[in-house]
């Protein structure tokens, strides 16, 4: 490098992308996924679900203040958080599975960044026109028409962005109540802040950052490479068939590619798929639709750009038959992912159905380990937490089973061995267990026994094993 040479630019302005409208099977699939995913996101908080009095009637609700997660007929308490952890692991393994089988299919079809950007593109196309009109507008002076179109577009974007941020907070509180509060200025500060932040991110990421988010900000595309191999089905260009590309009628020495740039014009990340696989590519498959359309018009078979695996490309080039799609998808790593995913799913489902409506934890008070009473008997103290997850107030009976050892139960502040526990709550009950003087548990260092809790309303029982500490006279 000579000293007179101009220094390299290390930073570059974003190249604007103006994707052209496209029709085809993958575009239709994307429309369907867009409608379904956005529909789920916006509508879910408004679904009602009657759980009886005193409990929220929102089907999906993350009640952080009361530490409950409601999902239709399922109610998750904090001590059951492993359900959430399990679902997150399943989501992760699911992504691994889909990535290893179908490449960046998450990025191309269902990532919120892709879906909202797609929605924003639609609005843009609707207000400013298709690719060529938008290109002209981009280069045009800032006259009245440009301002009008831009401001209209931004206003619609902003509306979508506010709705997006607004829908998010509805998952955390009763949606109809919160909507009224938001509109009348009575909602909590944190609700407005959340709506504000999500509005800003939706507006900026969907309207302006777009593919930059995927290329520079998102870690997932970088991680995905580790899950892909030569059998992963991904979007690619059949260059052995297309090259040498060229325009014109005389095609004796040319491939099938007529160099019409349709694939480039529709690309939402602004790349040319004919250059091979690139890190920017989110495999949205719109170039496939665009090229298939052109191939149909010039009377060539579809699939110059197509979903295929790397091994297929080599086979086709050599004129060998390619493997079936299923052989690509069913291979060791996808089977392992599927097995792990299913195992966790089956485990969680089983846990969901066998879990009890009542639950207890026992925390032995070990400061001190035991108390000697005036008649020489030995008393241990336990903090018993009873969780009444039913939707009725109920009386619970606490008993001990100790292989015939004479342990007596008393409850602090209660008559007898029953305690009322309110609806849908946890009750902390201090329990005294006393062994008479000179009985075996009073004299031995440790005696294992079992606490039983029975809901006298439903006769559901549960137990926890714990230990009684004696004086250890030996």
């Amino acid at each position, binding site marked *: *490098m000579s000293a007179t040479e101009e220094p390299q630019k290390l930073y570059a302005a974003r190249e604007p992308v103006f994707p052209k409208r496209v029709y085809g099977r993958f575009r239709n699939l994307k429309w369907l996924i867009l409608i379904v995913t956005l529909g789920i996101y916006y509508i879910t908080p408004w679904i009602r679900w009657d759980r009886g009095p005193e409990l929220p009637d929102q089907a999906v609700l993350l009640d952080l203040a009361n530490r409950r997660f409601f999902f239709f007929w399922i109610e998750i308490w904090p001590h059951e958080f492993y359900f959430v952890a399990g679902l997150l692991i399943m989501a992760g393994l699911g992504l691994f599975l889909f990535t290893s089988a179908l490449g960046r299919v998450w990025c191309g079809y269902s990532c919120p960044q892709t879906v909202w950007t797609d929605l924003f593109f639609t609005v843009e196309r609707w207000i400013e026109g298709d690719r060529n009109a938008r290109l002209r507008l981009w280069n045009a002076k800032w006259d009245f028409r440009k301002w009008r179109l831009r401001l209209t577009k931004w206003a619609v974007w902003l509306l979508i962005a506010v709705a997006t941020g607004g829908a998010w907070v509805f998952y955390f509180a009763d949606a109809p109540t919160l909507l009224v509060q938001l509109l009348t200025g009575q909602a909590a500060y944190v609700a407005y802040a959340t709506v504000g932040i999500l509005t800003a991110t939706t507006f900026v990421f969907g309207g302006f950052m777009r593919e930059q988010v995927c290329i*520079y900000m998102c870690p997932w595309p970088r991680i995905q490479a580790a899950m892909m191999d030569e059998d992963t089905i991904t979007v690619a260009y059949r260059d052995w068939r297309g090259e040498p590309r060229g325009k014109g009628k005389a095609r004796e020495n040319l491939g099938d590619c007529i160099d019409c740039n349709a694939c480039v014009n529709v690309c939402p990340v602004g790349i040319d798929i004919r250059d091979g696989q690139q890190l920017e590519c989110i495999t949205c498959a719109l170039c496939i639709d665009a090229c298939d359309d052109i191939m149909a018009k010039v009377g060539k078979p579809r699939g110059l750009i197509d979903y295929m695996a790397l091994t297929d490309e080599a086979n086709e080039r050599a004129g060998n038959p390619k493997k079936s799609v299923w052989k690509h998808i069913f291979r060791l790593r996808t089977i392992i992912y599927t097995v792990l995913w299913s195992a966790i799913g089956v485990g969680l489902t089983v846990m969901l159905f066998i879990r009890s409506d009542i639950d207890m934890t026992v925390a032995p008070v070990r400061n001190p380990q035991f108390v000697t009473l005036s*008649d020489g008997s030995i008393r241990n103290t336990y903090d018993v937490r009873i969780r009444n997850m039913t939707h009725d107030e109920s009386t619970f009976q606490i008993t001990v089973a100790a292989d015939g050892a004479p342990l007596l139960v008393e409850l602090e502040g209660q008559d007898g061995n029953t305690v009322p526990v309110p609806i849908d709550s946890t009750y902390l009950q201090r329990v005294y267990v006393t062994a008479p003087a000179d009985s075996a548990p009073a004299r031995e260092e440790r005696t294992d026994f079992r606490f039983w809790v029975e809901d006298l309303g439903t006769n559901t029982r549960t137990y926890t094993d714990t230990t009684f500490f004696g004086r250890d006279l030996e």
Partner: protein
Amino acid sequence: MTDNTNKHPEEQQLMAGDPETTGHSWDGIKEFNNPLPRWWLWTFYATIAWGLVYTVLYPAWPLVNGATPGILGFSTRANVAEDIQRFDDMNADVRTRIAEVELAAITPDENPDLYNYAIQGGAATFATWCSQCHGSGAAGVQASGYPNLLDDDWLWGGTIDEIHYTISHGIRNEDDLDARYSEMTAFEGILSDEEIASVVQYVRNISGQEANATLAAAGETVFLDNCAACHMDDGTGDRFMGAPNLTDAIWLYGGSEEAIEETVRHARFGVMPPWSADASEAGRLSEAEVRSVAVYVHSLGGGE
């Protein structure tokens, strides 16, 4: 580096298109020019600006004594003080009522809010002021004669009112004229060694422990003549004088022969300070706090 023939085929292919490089070359290793987006650069500058503004607005740069205060006057300590004041204000009403209602009325049924506050607040006050002697679990320290507050044996009474009195005024202290007071005689010199040995065996006997039968029989007379005035004829003690029950399984200073003999010879003189600021200048706790601790101690399993 124009000779590409000995390079990896892929690199040959890459270099064939004369790609743009940064121009840097280290031992022939070149770097493709993949410029970062300009917005990234501006974001980086923005974070620097943010950092500078932040250090002006908020406490930041360390100096010799503390740090620059920041022009917004933000202080975590002031926030804590504010929070404490806020909670004090919130609890003011409960505290006033705890100090005024009948002690016996602070129960889960009659005044659940007061009871809950007393238990939680009493536990905190106990941990701060009482646990040094009585232990964090309120089990006392037998070797030092700090009573166990969890059992059902009380020297001066275990009703809520008696516990409240003991906490308010303390035991055998000079600061509060209303302190509970009694003093056991040190019998060394008054009783002979044989008499002391026999009364020790007698006390061991009436508390159901192993004892020498001959000595214990001889000790009964000694006990009735010297000890029964306070500990009563049957040895069950007298709460009015804080004289412990000698027939049960609980020992303030231990029930071994050595411990009992030490008690008989030299007596014991356990002291507790007065805690009520109303009752004594030495008292450090408000009436609401004293009452909270009383409710808490009463709830520990031995309250009468």
